[in-house]
């Protein structure tokens, strides 16, 4: 079982967003593996342990993304690849074409990724990649088992569960509930230092300038408007309930 996992390094959930010169500042920010990609890494490790084979984690990103790849190696992945992305625009069409160029050179049974990244929240790259590689896919899976060259997965469809049978090779994106990702053990961290982490450039992948054209561009970033202080309602609970309903009708005008 040869498994590739798509991994993105993201801001830690708890981080505040600070703009500096109109750009989101990375100063002092703690970075983590995108939480949805962590489910994918965990699933890949479990499948490898059950069926044998190899888990390769691959990321498109700046040099700092190698820390996230190293963490995935410490969790139990076998190899990591960082495709250095300085010239790659922050656009899902371009990123998916880069990944497709790399994966076309590999052989695999499964590709796993997260349902979406918690920073850009676009949820495009993995599904685009499935199309570019002409693979069947199921997104937002919360369960998975393999038998006879097929995967039986559970897909979260806005709360309903679809049981889907998919021929391999195929691509899946992980939704919360798929598994509980492990923490790297001390031994895992030590081992990870010796595991291969290759760095590829765009030239290594033979990408044309056309493949790197951005389908969309960010023109600005803004912060949400400052919130007015909460209005605490006082008095007897019964009066509070009545006042709140009146405020919603006459002040907020939402009912």
């Amino acid at each position: 079982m040869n498994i590739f996992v798509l991994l993105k390094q993201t801001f830690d959930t708890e981080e505040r967003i600070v703009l500096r010169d109109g750009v989101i500042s990375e100063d002092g920010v703690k970075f983590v593996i995108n939480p949805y990609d962590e489910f994918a890494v965990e699933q890949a490790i479990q499948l490898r342990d059950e069926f044998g084979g190899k888990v390769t984690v691959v990321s498109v990103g700046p040099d700092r993304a190698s820390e996230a790849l190293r963490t995935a190696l410490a969790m139990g992945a076998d190899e990591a690849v960082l495709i250095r992305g300085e010239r790659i625009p922050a656009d899902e069409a371009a990123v998916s074409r880069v990944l497709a160029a790399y994966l076309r050179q590999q052989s695999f049974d499964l590709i796993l990724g997260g349902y979406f990244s918690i920073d850009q929240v676009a949820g495009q790259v993995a599904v685009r990649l499935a199309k570019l590689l002409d693979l069947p896919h199921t997104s937002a899976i919360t369960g998975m088992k393999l038998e006879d060259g097929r995967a039986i997965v559970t897909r979260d469809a806005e709360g309903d569960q679809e049981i889907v049978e998919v021929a391999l090779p195929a691509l899946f994106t992980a939704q919360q509930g798929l598994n509980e990702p492990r923490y790297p053990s001390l031994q895992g961290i030590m081992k990870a230092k010796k595991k291969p982490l290759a760095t590829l450039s765009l030239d290594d992948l033979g990408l044309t300038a056309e493949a790197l054209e951005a389908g969309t561009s960010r023109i600005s970033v803004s912060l949400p408007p400052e919130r007015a202080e909460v209005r605490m309602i006082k008095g007897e609970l019964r009066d509070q309930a009545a006042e709140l309903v009146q405020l919603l009708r006459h002040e907020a005008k939402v009912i």
Partner: protein
Amino acid sequence: MNQTFLIVAETREGRLRQVVYEALTAAALSAGEGDRKIGVLLGSGVEMQVIELAACGLDQLYVIDDPSLHTYNPDTWSNALLAVIEQVKPDAIFLGHTAIGRDLAPLISASLNAGQISDVTDIRQADGRPVFTRPIYAGKAFEQRVANTRPYVVTIRPNNFQAAGPTNQSCEIVRLAPPAPSLRSFVKDVLKKASSKVDLTEAKYIVSGGRGVRGAEGFRLLEELADVLGGAVGASRGACDAGYCDYSMQIGQTGKVVTPEVYIACGISGAIQHLAGMSNSRVIIAINTDPEAPIFRVAHYGIVGDLFQVVPLLTEEFRKLLASQS
């Protein structure tokens, strides 16, 4: 040169989804005078919806009504949609940011080599082109994006655009044959978990419970309030983990992202993971016994008190108000 906008409709429980009407508005905001709006409706047994949708100001409506489109399959649906796109040659394609839209949009974007802007909450014209605003970093920031390709693809977040209403414009209906069903993947079974009443992401009113609700019993109080408002019940991860309710109700970074008119947080402390799923709601009401709970920092109105007392009182007050106006 006039442009063509394609709006992809979908149904849920035999009805057109609210987000379809909102996507019509979003397309209109992106369009200029003389631009054409064409709808496409994929599904099985959707004749009633064809009539409804055709009345909403479309120039044309493409329909593929076939049992093979009863449940979503990426191959079948994208092939069906691509067949329509082949004929219509749109400049832009609009979908709802729903379970189906989130999957279908990147598939057709990749097929068309198109740029896509996901989860859009606002559209403005600047320098003669539409600029799309979307939340990033769990609503802690917004980005403004433009498309560089033709066609381009947009998914819109439910509950952020006004719903388009019926017009007098006549609409030509075009029926196409179904695509070949997928041989690579198929849905064996569907387990209904979500409450079929009101979809959380499309609900105008959400009553949401956390650990403070203390059990499935407590959630019944929230359901009563939601029923009076015609809304839906949501939950924090804590409440789901504790087994008070199904994960299909979870709102947060993992779970659903919602932007209702009114969000009533009952016994929810307001962990950042939860705020990520609801902080962009129009009006947030927090009910909590702890006046220091972080939920009050994002709330517009706050009541410090026991939800078991406050929620039934609110239900009663809303019932009175809504009864008096009908």
